Structures are given as C-alpha cells and as structure tokens.
C-alpha cells in the first residue's frame, strides 16, 4: 500500500475522520499539561523573574511558525511534482495556522521585551526575520484568496512558496548582517546555571510536542474543510453546466 493512496480526497477524509479524535485529545492534553506545569509549577528565573513563564508559549509558537512554512514548502513541492490535490489543499490549510503561530510568537515576544529590554520592539535580526516571515504568510494567503480558479491558485501559490523560501533565507542573512541582536541565543539554556535550565526544559518540551500535535490536528481538520469546499465548488460548477 502506497502512501500516495491518502492523496485521494475521499480516502483522506475517511482516514482523517479516524485520526482526528486522537489528535484533538492528545494535543489538548499535552498543551494543557505543559502550560499548566509551566505556569504554576516552575520557579522564577533569578534574572527574568516570573516573565520566564512566557517561554512556554513563545518558543513552541516560534518553532511551529517556522515548521508550518516548511510543511507548506514540502506540500507545495508534492503538488508541483505529483499533482495531488490534497497536498495543495494541505498547504492552503496550514498557512492560517502558521500565521497565527507567528502572531503568537510576535505578541508574546513583544510583551516579554517590554520588561526585559525596556521596549516592545527592537529591530533585532531574529525578530525582524520573523516579521518578514509574517509578510510572506500574508502574501501567500492573499494570493490564494485572490485567484478564482483553484488549480491555478494551487500552482501559483506553490511557486510563490518555493521562491519565497529562497528569499526568506536570503532575508535572514541580510537582516543578520544589517543589525546585531539583543535576542536570546538559539539554545535552551536561559542563563549560565544549568540546573535552572533543567527546571524549565521539561515543561517546555511538553509544550513543544503539544503545539506540534495541535498544528497537526488543525491542519488535518482544515484540509478536510478545504477538500469539502473544493468539492462544493466543483459540484456547483457542474450543476450549472448541466443546467
């Protein structure tokens, strides 16, 4: 049995119907556990005080924002190469989830920045490239919305996604060159003291997995919706043509 069998819309709908409950429950559970653990049962950081609790939202959201784009890239490639409609629709379904994750990362980051850096926003490379990512999401979604013919829209958005990825990476380097940052380094250690980091890392891992599963659940569900919407469109067009 080949994996491509799930590229049939009907088969996808049937399968996702079975997987959905598992995904909903597990993601809900893990997110709840992770966030409650992080919010209620972690100590304050000696420098950042209680603001460190924001990390349980901020980091998983940032992670998923990037991964969502990556998933869209893969799905777009699959559509371009193998032309499975489900994969194009999955990319379409993922974009709004990705943009919400980006917004959460931006919002929590901005709120966190106020006490830590004394400003809501700084043109730090990491933050800036996130803002650019947000713009890419906006353009991608706007292009889907603007084009009427579904196959054309799928083709064009896939190409935009491919080209956009290249330019997003380029922007990342450009931004790095342009301004040196304030932002935390890309490691899980919050400060030099290893043991403190440990206390935060476990709930953080739980949250990350929870956010990942949540993303999957949303994408599955939304892909189903997109499939149905696409089918409605096709049915209505048929109905009119027969008339």
């Amino acid at each position: 049995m080949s994996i491509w069998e799930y590229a049939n819309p009907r088969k996808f709908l049937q399968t996702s119907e079975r997987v959905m409950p598992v995904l909903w429950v597990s993601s809900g559970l893990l997110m709840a556990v992770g966030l409650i653990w992080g919010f209620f049962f972690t100590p304050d950081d000696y420098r950042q005080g209680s603001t460190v609790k924001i990390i349980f939202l901020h980091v998983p959201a940032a992670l998923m924002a990037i991964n969502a784009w990556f998933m869209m890239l893969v799905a777009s490639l699959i559509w371009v190469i193998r032309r499975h409609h489900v994969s194009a629709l999955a990319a379409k379904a993922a974009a709004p989830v990705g943009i919400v994750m980006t917004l959460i990362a931006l919002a929590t980051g901005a709120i966190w920045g106020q006490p830590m850096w004394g400003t809501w926003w700084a043109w730090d490379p990491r933050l800036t490239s996130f803002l650019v990512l947000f713009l890419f999401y906006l353009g991608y979604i706007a292009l889907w919305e603007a084009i009427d013919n579904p196959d054309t829209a799928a083709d064009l958005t896939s190409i935009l996604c491919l080209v956009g990825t290249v330019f997003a990476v380029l922007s990342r380097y450009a931004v790095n060159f342009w301004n040196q940052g304030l932002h935390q380094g890309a490691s899980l250690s919050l400060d030099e003291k290893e043991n403190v980091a440990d206390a935060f890392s476990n709930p953080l891992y739980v949250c990350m997995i929870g956010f990942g599963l949540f993303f999957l659940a949303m994408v599955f569900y939304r892909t189903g919706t997109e499939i149905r919407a696409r089918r409605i469109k096709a049915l209505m067009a048929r109905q009119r043509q027969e008339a």
Partner: protein
Amino acid sequence: MLPDLGKYSETVLSAYAASLLLLALLVVLTLWRGRRVRRDMDTLEQRMRRDG
C-alpha cells in the same frame, strides 16, 4: 490559586491571555467554517443525487 508572579504579573498574564485568545480564535473559526462547509456539502450532494 494563581502563583505569585511578582512585579511581572501583568506581563505574564497578558502574554498568556493574548496567546490563548489567538489560539481560541483560530480553533473557533476553523471549527465554524468546517461545520458550515460540511453541512453545505452534504445538502448539495443530497440535492444533486435526488435531482439526478
């Protein structure tokens, strides 16, 4: 009930509130549209099957 968040309580709470709000918004919109589309498709399919 709430842990002691010290002088940063506003910051932390608003970060959690904003994020949970955004997540909830996403979920609600997704489910709302999902339900509607599913219902529309079912009625349309039935009608078309009936009319041949």
